């Protein structure tokens, strides 16, 4: 009872701080200097229509590399932590008998899977034009894998293929970054390829290429997490 009371008091205090912050918040009337720089220079310097993408892939590309590394570490640790339990189970593995998932579910999954994968690829290749990008597209691709796993929990996905896709696209991402140092202004500079016509699919230099690799990498990492988590299921 006292614990509950202390908790409510604590939350009331934090809530009061939040209320103070919120009431004192005055929305900016003008863009601040950082945002103004991005707004004015994205189109002419990088040729990308989506400023958020330009920030993530080029202006702050190094941070994105770090973020992808964090995701890779997460996927690796999830695999490591869950694999130990799996080895023990493999000895006592019995052939699990699940009722079939049903005609509607099976056919629906087979019908939707390629469409979702295609949509994911669309989202990450159009990241410089539309509100999308590698991370969103990768998450969509992983959602296709999740649907396949949900409709048929016994489905096996090749860990080797997933890690091959992941490491290849990671290496490609870094290679493009280093090419930026050699051929253009700096690490992950997108001007190693011609900027093209503003607003076209093949424009904005290396941004679509980088975001495609980021999409593949993120999709592979999320998929490997999902597959690892689903393989722990006691069947």
């Amino acid at each position, binding site marked *: 009872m006292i614990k*509950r009371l202390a*908790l409510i008091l*604590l*939350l009331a205090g*934090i*809530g009061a701080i*939040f*209320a103070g*912050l*919120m009431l004192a*918040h005055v*929305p*900016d*009337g003008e*863009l*601040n200097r*950082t*945002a*103004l720089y*991005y*707004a*004015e220079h*994205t*189109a*002419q310097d990088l040729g990308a*229509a*989506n*400023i*958020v993408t330009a*920030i*993530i892939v080029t202006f*702050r590309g190094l*941070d*994105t590399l770090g*973020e992808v590394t*964090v*995701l890779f570490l*997460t*996927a690796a*640790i*999830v695999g490591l*932590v*869950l694999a*130990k*339990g799996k080895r023990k189970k493999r000895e006592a593995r019995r052939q699990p008998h699940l009722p079939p998932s049903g005609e509607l579910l099976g056919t629906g999954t087979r019908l939707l899977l390629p469409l979702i994968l295609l949509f994911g690829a669309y989202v990450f290749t159009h990241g410089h*034009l*539309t*509100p999308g*990008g590698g*991370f969103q597209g990768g*998450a969509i691709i992983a959602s296709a894998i999740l649907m396949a796993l949900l409709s048929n929990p016994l489905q096996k996905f090749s860990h080797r293929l997933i890690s091959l896709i992941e490491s290849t696209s990671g290496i490609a991402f870094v290679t493009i970054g280093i090419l930026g140092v050699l051929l253009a202004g700096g690490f992950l500079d997108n001007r190693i390829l011609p900027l093209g016509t*503003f*607003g076209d699919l093949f424009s904005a230099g290396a941004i679509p290429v980088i975001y495609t690799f980021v999409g593949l990498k*993120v999709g592979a990492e*999320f998929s490997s*997490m999902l597959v*690892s*988590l689903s393989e*722990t299921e006691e069947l």
Partner: protein
Amino acid sequence: MAIIAMATGFILILIGLFGALSNRNILRMIVAFAVANTGVNLVLVAVGYMRGRTAPILDDAVPVAEAASRIIDPVPQALVLTAIVIGVGVTALMLAYAYRLYQTKGSLDISKHTDLKW
């Protein structure tokens, strides 16, 4: 509009903290953390909102020349995009550790896991 989003975000943070502190089941705590995470993202996006402006994507509706006066702040959006992805990673890690804890102790009750308590 932004004030509604911001208030929702703060309320979600409070709900998440309440859930994480008042529940003893580890899975419920993980869900509560995910809720709080969503709240933080919502607050960050709401801070970048500016009245009467539009998304930072340049096209026919937002010509390049007028970009500086027509778009909202793109930096919080880029930050939140990062934060969402890292949030997913953190949630997956927490779930994996919860599974291992369940394997060792056979229970998801946090009060049974007293190894690091002093």
